[in-house]
């Protein structure tokens, strides 16, 4: 199954020994199981993911180059989404079935169905291409992570990076706050009907204090779970978006690796994703045990 990677590296009419030599160099002449697999697993423990078929550089170097970009983009978007979702969702829950709530609900449904890449396309044409083509104003960059030919001043570089970050982040927030808002609104509505809220109200506590002290505390575990469950999606979920924005991150790297049959790179990215899933769920378990007194460490 699949495609012989040496096909991309040597000429089609190159002598067959060269092909055999190349296969040997990449270790592809051995049987996949157990030889190749055992070597792969053993190498994982040493942090070696093999060499990219395309560039012949170590895959781990290529991943480490791109990892900060993905972490910055997806991390900030997850944080922003959940912060907005929590605030708006709790607010909508307190104003249930009032005008504000009935405005928030369709907005969150709209944001829930809007894919990030589609929002990205809309933003790109409205905020990047339109000003650039009609008025010649470079309001936002069309693609990429950094501008070429920047002076080595770190402040300018940071500002330039932020300038490139704006559009993808905006797209992910507009297209992402809806699901968390809807989720937290529903959780908060069930919480607000609990007896302890009634008790707190009967004690005469102000609504804001009830929300901040009581409801927020019991909403926290599901929030942590939701955040933890959204972390594993950062690589695979961002493939299309990073491709649209040419964001120099792991999603684009995964896409390029997939479309060029670059197996070591694909394996490495999927492995990173699995590790990320495990770590985030583990951290979430600990955090929930810390937040929820009913759950105890054993």
């Amino acid at each position, binding site marked *: 199954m699949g495609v012989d990677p040496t096909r991309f590296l040597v000429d089609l009419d190159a002598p067959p020994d060269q092909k055999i030599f190349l296969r040997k160099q990449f270790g592809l002449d051995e049987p996949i199981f157990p030889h190749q697999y055992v070597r792969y697993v053993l190498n994982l423990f040493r942090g070696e993911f093999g060499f990219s078929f395309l560039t012949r550089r170590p895959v781990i170097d290529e991943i480490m180059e791109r990892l900060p970009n993905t972490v910055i983009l997806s991390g900030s978007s997850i944080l922003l989404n959940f912060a907005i979702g929590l605030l708006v969702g709790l607010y909508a829950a307190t104003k249930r079935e009032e005008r504000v709530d009935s405005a928030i609900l369709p907005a969150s449904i*709209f944001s829930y169905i809007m*894919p990030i890449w*589609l929002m990205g396309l809309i933003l790109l044409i409205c905020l990047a291409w339109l000003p650039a*083509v009609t008025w010649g104003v470079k309001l936002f960059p069309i693609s990429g992570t950094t501008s070429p030919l920047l002076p080595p001043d770190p402040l300018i570089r940071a500002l330039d990076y932020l300038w490139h970050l704006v559009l993808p982040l905006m797209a992910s927030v507009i297209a992402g706050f809806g699901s968390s808002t809807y989720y937290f609104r529903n959780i908060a509505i069930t919480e607000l009907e609990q007896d302890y809220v009634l008790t707190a109200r009967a004690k005469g506590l102000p609504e804001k204090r009830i929300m901040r002290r009581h409801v927020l505390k019991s909403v926290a575990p599901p929030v942590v779970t939701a955040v933890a469950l959204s972390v594993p999606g950062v690589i*695979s979920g961002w493939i299309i978006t990073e491709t649209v924005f040419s964001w120099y991150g792991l999603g684009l790297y995964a896409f390029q690796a*997939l479309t060029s049959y670059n197996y070591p790179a694909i394996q490495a990215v999927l492995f990173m*994703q699995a590790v990320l899933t495990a770590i985030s769920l583990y951290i979430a378990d600990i955090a929930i045990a810390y937040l929820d007194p009913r759950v105890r460490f054993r």
Partner: protein
Amino acid sequence: MRSSLGGRLILARYGLHRSRTLRMLLKRKMWIFGIIVLVANISVAVFAPVIATRDPIYDIHVADDLAMPEWITIFPGFGDIPRNFLVLINHRDWKRSIHGTHASLIRLDDTGDELVTSYQRSGVEEKGDTELTLTHTFDYGYAPPRTFVAYLPIAVTITKVTGVSYKFALSVTRSSDGKTFVVYDSYPPWRTSDFIRLGDNRITIHSRDPMLGRKLGVTLLERNIAEMIFSSKTSYTIHLTISIADEGLAGDTGEMKVALSPLSFRIPGKAYGILGTNHEGADIFSQLVYGTRVSLTVGILSASIAVLVGIIVGVIAGYQGGIVDQTFMFITDTLIQTPTLPIIILVMMLFSRSIYVIVSILALFSWMGLARQLRAWVLSLKERPFVEAVRAAGGGDLYVMFRVIAPQTIPLLTYSFVLSIPGAILTEAGLSMIGFGDPLFPSWGKILNEAWNSGGFASLAWWWIAPPIAALLLLALSVVSLGRTLEEVLNPRLRKR
């Protein structure tokens, strides 16, 4: 009994009757909006061949590249954008004039399908030039076009004469200032019977031809020839000149025949159709109409498969329990955590980009949530007295699972079926957007992909980018609002108290 019993049972248990459920649904605006949009989409998908005017894949160059929608011409300032303009000069419509020394040797015959000019030579021994000029005048009433194409199907046959040579010239005269542009000239050299072997029976004149620019003395990078020639709204005259030079050889007896089929002169419009054209002049409206089929097929098919798999896994796992349950739930949990998109792209890279592959993989990765929910429902349902009663009456495991318990979960199935449609539609669109669509189906994502890759964004072709985005969002929004309303009505936990 049978499946209808289950449906009635469950609805009755939640205080819902079929008519009352329907009435509750009809009261909601979101439901009505969703139904209207969905029905519109389905009818567009069904009647796509009737609604679309062009084939979405194979029809290209129906108008100029990046032509705007035609309705834009009703706005001021856009009124004289060139529309598709075709002058078909029938072989009988030419105005003819023959002059020269050997004019008497020329016979014209337009009784057949083509205008046949025959120059019959029999024993004349003097040199001479003859010229046949065909003219046709037409009016052009739009702004300067971007390109023009002329097809001149002309065939020359020379039998037994060696001393006769010919040349053609095609020129356009603008009547406002009398300027003449020679757009085709076969001279030099004079063509003789030797040339016929090389063949020139169809002359194509395209305004983007660099040779044409050289002939007119302009560089294509600096001037647009079509704009230069058709710069004003006036009448234009096409002259087709066929010159025949006779060397006057003695004993050269035979004839030369020039057959001219209808000449077509075409100016591709910069405004065309309902939604204009894309980078290769294909009709976007037709692509959009056919794209409805792809989106609906992908959404409904993959949601159906997902629900089917979900029912089987969820009900069996919940009902059987034990090792079966653990195995199924392990598979479910593994698939939930699997990154979907890389796997889909990998499978498409390795196997095929057929739409059915997309549908099946999308279905394979979207049944897990439903299976888990169903398992939870079945766990509680199987302890109910009526299940016990059926079992006591001798109902087998399969009968109980799929005839008694499964119908009880119809409300859950209904709204999870509807709610898993938009995800599939949008994922397919996203895959098509990055180039992983079925190349034989014009999906909405593919339109966006073409706009993305072929300069639709850089040229701000809103008529190209906005329709697929709007169609996708409208369809997804309608299906989601249907699903949400169903969920609210059918799920007792969410109903407003």
